[in-house]
């Protein structure tokens, strides 16, 4: 083959290369690029034609043309790939821009309900006492005189009954005034050691205002074993309240009278708000009177079949709402039973 023809072919390859480059550059989508690939690199492309036409060339010419056209092929291929990349990047950019949203818009239809604050507190109280080895029981709503009063050393007609304004049903039963209604059952059903709390709803026949409710939740507890002492009671309750309020609290025991305990009294907690310094909530005393408690009266133990000569124990009862109100800064006890979702949804 003539060298001039070889030169022609070489310049044609260059022309094709330029031409392809221009077209590739101008392409703005993947379909066009695919067509260009067929046009310049396909089986029927001019480059293939050129290669077909050099069958009679000399080996050195063949090598030169072959090399040149292969180079051209890979250059075109690179250009196409480069261009594909550019187009994809551009398309992604467009999608990114197009799909951009205002991330600050609040979502609709959040589907997460709320447990009542009393329920979550009950769970919290149960968990602390269970960690301390106490079983959990629940009371009946309606109970009899024996369990609510008599078995707790409060005989009928006893003036101590004045402390519990009682709702009576037409069937002669009682809307329980305290969860101590379960004490006799718990103590008779189990051999000491007995560690148990009873959490549930209680009722007192008293007018309702921001601080008083006829319906409230009580946590009563008992601990009976050999060698249980009054300081054990103070320690146990101190431990509970310190865990509930998540700070180390001091406790104070002052005399009071409850027929089912002897000695019996009122336990106060160093004020959780002012840490005992004195504030409005604790009426500047530094103490919050929280619960009645004491050493279980021997008659109560005997009525449950426990020998008071061998065993001793303590019992207490406190209202759950007061605890919550102090912890969560709630100023009206009536909110708990209001059914107001504006309240419920806060916790």
């Amino acid at each position, binding site marked *: 083959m003539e060298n001039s023809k070889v030169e022609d072919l070489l310049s044609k390859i260059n022309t094709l290369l330029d031409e392809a480059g221009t077209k590739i550059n101008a392409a703005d989508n993947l379909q066009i690029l695919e067509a260009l690939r067929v046009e310049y690199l396909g089986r029927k492309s001019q480059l293939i034609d050129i290669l077909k036409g050099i069958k009679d060339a000399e080996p050195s010419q063949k090598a030169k043309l072959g090399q040149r056209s292969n180079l051209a092929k890979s250059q075109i291929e690179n250009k196409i790939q480069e261009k594909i990349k550019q187009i994809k990047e551009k398309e992604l950019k467009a999608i990114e821009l197009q799909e951009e949203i205002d991330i600050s818009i609040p979502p609709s239809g959040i589907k997460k309900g709320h*447990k009542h604050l009393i329920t979550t507190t009950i769970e919290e109280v149960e968990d602390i006492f269970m960690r301390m080895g106490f079983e959990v029981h629940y009371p009946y709503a309606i109970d009899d005189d024996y369990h609510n009063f008599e078995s707790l050393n409060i005989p009928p007609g006893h003036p101590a009954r004045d402390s519990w304004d009682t709702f009576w049903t037409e069937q002669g039963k009682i809307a329980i005034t305290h969860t101590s209604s379960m004490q006799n059952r718990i103590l008779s059903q189990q051999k000491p050691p007995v560690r148990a709390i009873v959490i549930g709803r209680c009722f007192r026949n008293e007018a309702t205002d921001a601080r008083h409710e006829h*319906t409230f939740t009580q946590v009563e507890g008992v601990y009976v074993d050999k060698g249980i002492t009054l300081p054990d009671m103070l320690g146990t309750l101190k431990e509970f309240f310190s865990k509930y309020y998540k700070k180390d609290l001091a406790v104070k025991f002052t005399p009071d009278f409850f027929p089912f305990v002897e000695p019996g009294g009122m336990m106060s907690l160093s004020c959780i708000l002012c840490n005992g310094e004195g504030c409005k909530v604790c009426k500047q005393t530094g103490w919050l009177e929280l619960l009645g408690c004491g050493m279980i009266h021997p008659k109560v133990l005997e009525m449950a079949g426990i020998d008071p000569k061998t065993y001793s124990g303590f019992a207490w009862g406190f209202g759950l709402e007061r605890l919550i109100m102090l912890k969560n800064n709630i100023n009206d006890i009536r909110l708990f039973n209001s059914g107001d979702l504006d309240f419920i949804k806060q916790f």
Partner: protein
Amino acid sequence: MLISHKWLKKYLPTLDELTKAQIAESLTTKLAEVEQIIAIRREIDKIIVGEVLEVNKIEESKKLTYCKVRVSDNTINDIICGAPNVKKGLKVAVCMPGGRIYDAHNEGKTIEITQKTMFGITSNGMICSAKELGISNDHEGIMELEDQLVPGTNLDEILKDFVYEIENKSLSHRPDCFSHEGIAREISAILNIPFKQDEINQPIVPTSELPFDLSVKVDNKDCERFSLAILSDIKVIKSPLWLICLLTATGLRSVNNIVDAANYIMFDKGQPLHTYDYDKITSKKLIVRYAKNGEKMKAIDGKEYRLEDDMMVISNGNQVDDIAGIMGGLSSEISFETKNILIEAANFNMYSVRRTSRKLGIRSEASTRFEKGQNPEKTENSIKQALNLILDLAEGEIAHELIDYYPNPREQKVIELDLTLVKRILGIDLPVREIIDYLERINCEILDPERVPNISSTPESNLPISVKIPKFRGDLNIEQDLLEEIARLYGYDKLTPTLPERDLQAVIPNKGLQINRLIGEIMASEGFDEIYSYTFIGKQLLERLSLNSKDNVKLINPLSPELELLRTSLIPNLIDKALLNASNYDEFSIYEKGRVIFKDIDPETKLNIQPENIAALSFSKEHKLLFYQIKTSLMSLAEGLNINLKFSKTIRGRFENLKNIFHPGRSAGIYLNEEIIGVISELHPKIKMDLNIKGNIAYWELDLSAISKLATFSKEYSPISIYQKVKRDLSFFIPDNAIYSDIENSINSLNLEYLIGIEFKDMYKEEGNKSITISLKFQSLERTLTDTEINDQMDKIVKVLEEKIKAKVRNN
């Protein structure tokens, strides 16, 4: 209860060596809370006794007079006075210039008295009314003082006082403490200061004679003792200033010297007294008996009371003169004309007095004391003290020896105290000497002191000591009572909290607790907010929901009609709370968990059947179908509790009572093991119309107690097949009366080997036919199923549907 500091000093001569705050603090920590210390008449100043020597008219004034008043041995002051009752010879209270009195026209304020010149007369001081002295509200005239007072005497000591307000709720076991003597004894024991006894041991010696008879016809346990004294020729007049001041400081009103003396003794000794006008008891006898049903008495409060046969009364034989221990009758009340009197100091049974006082709705100072259980021993000393006081205040003669019914004098109790209990129960190491010291401070006596173990060491042997209990401590009956005395005198504040030693046994949460926790999680994740409502419900709410209240247990003493019944379902209150929130939220879901109460009595517990229920409610402002939405939450709950619920249009049992609020076309009974355990429904359209509810409400309720018996929580693993799952859809028409569950039941009755699931796809009505599409899943544990095998099973399914529910398979 109000306790006067000045009064206490009668028993505690060294009391003023302590501060009021110390006294209050020691009472609070060792007896009962002192709620406050009230200053009595502390703001007034320079009040002295004056004697009116002359009353002169002032020409220029209609009302005013100017008086010459002796204000000391050698001083006579001119004082202008406007009171109508000022007269020569009167002893009066004068506030000297520079002193202060209460402003009669400005509650709680004081005014300063200054020298004033009017009508040319310089007034040096002011003659005071009872109101200006802070004694009563009387401002009609000046206060007339008793003649015995010496002009010039400073009245500070008589007028002024401090009063301790003691929380008496925690003293209901301490009848002895409802008196100054009792509180004084306590202060003496707590602070270890001397106590001055105040007992009269001499017998009553009559100096005149009036006849009288007493008979007691009630059970001795209802009236253990009845003591009666008679005085003749007394003068009923106003009480002296010192007595008026003590009574008003402790919350009483002064009436006359006789009534005041009786009240004084009650507040002093804790023994209620009753006084009768002797001459008005014409029969000259008193009978203690039970009232007749329907018998009536007009009491000194002016009201007539209808009595019942379990009430004790004191009668003159014709009529009732006194409701025992509670309130006296008007007919024999002491008046300023009374000449001869009867004084009664009795001991009535606490239960009887309390019952009567409750039934009649009378609470008096007397009943408050008797209700606690008074000590019969003290009637005698109290009546003697009263006699002495009345003879002093009203002159008169003792006209009879003491009439005393006391057939069974109380024995003094002895408690055997095991000293080792101090350590075992109180957890404190106390030397024997200290324990005994505390007991002796509360007037206990240690019998057989030689039995007392080594006095200086802590008790080791459980050899008990014998402790003789003073008669006034009826509350001390067992060892534990003495332990409380020892502990409080030692000081509760000295106890160091300890934690009991215990085994490592782990607590098993009860099933109820586990269910509660699970429910809380599931309902919250289903978007339900938990509410609490009252266990009580009103007839009115039930009626608004077209529900009757015949199955609701009634309270006999409800707070209000809205809280009169016990709920038998949680749904009515849920609807009520939903309506409350409907104005604030377009859509919401709420639930409540709690006991419902039925009239039926459980034979085992002898209590009302009172299952723990859970109910859920969804509200939407739109009129959309809510049934399936709320059913989703129910099925999530069933899944969580691992129970298999069935639904049926039949609603039986207790839930049937609610049928008026169930939507007839959108309600179902929920069944577990063939037993109805709940209901699900939309609110009946009629109720929605009645209550004008815009939107829709759906709810369900479940008996958790029943579920709790059947729920196991335990889940077992079923092997997972590695072979292909094949899904086939099937569409067919079913008759109008057939429901979806019929389809599942029919297919399940085949017990097909490879069928592992039936899924509902859709249902719609087309030309009067219900068209339904279900999806069926087949799989084998052993191999890939062939088309033939699946077709075979599909054929069986089609056949059973055609046979059992007349289904017609559609040609797809």
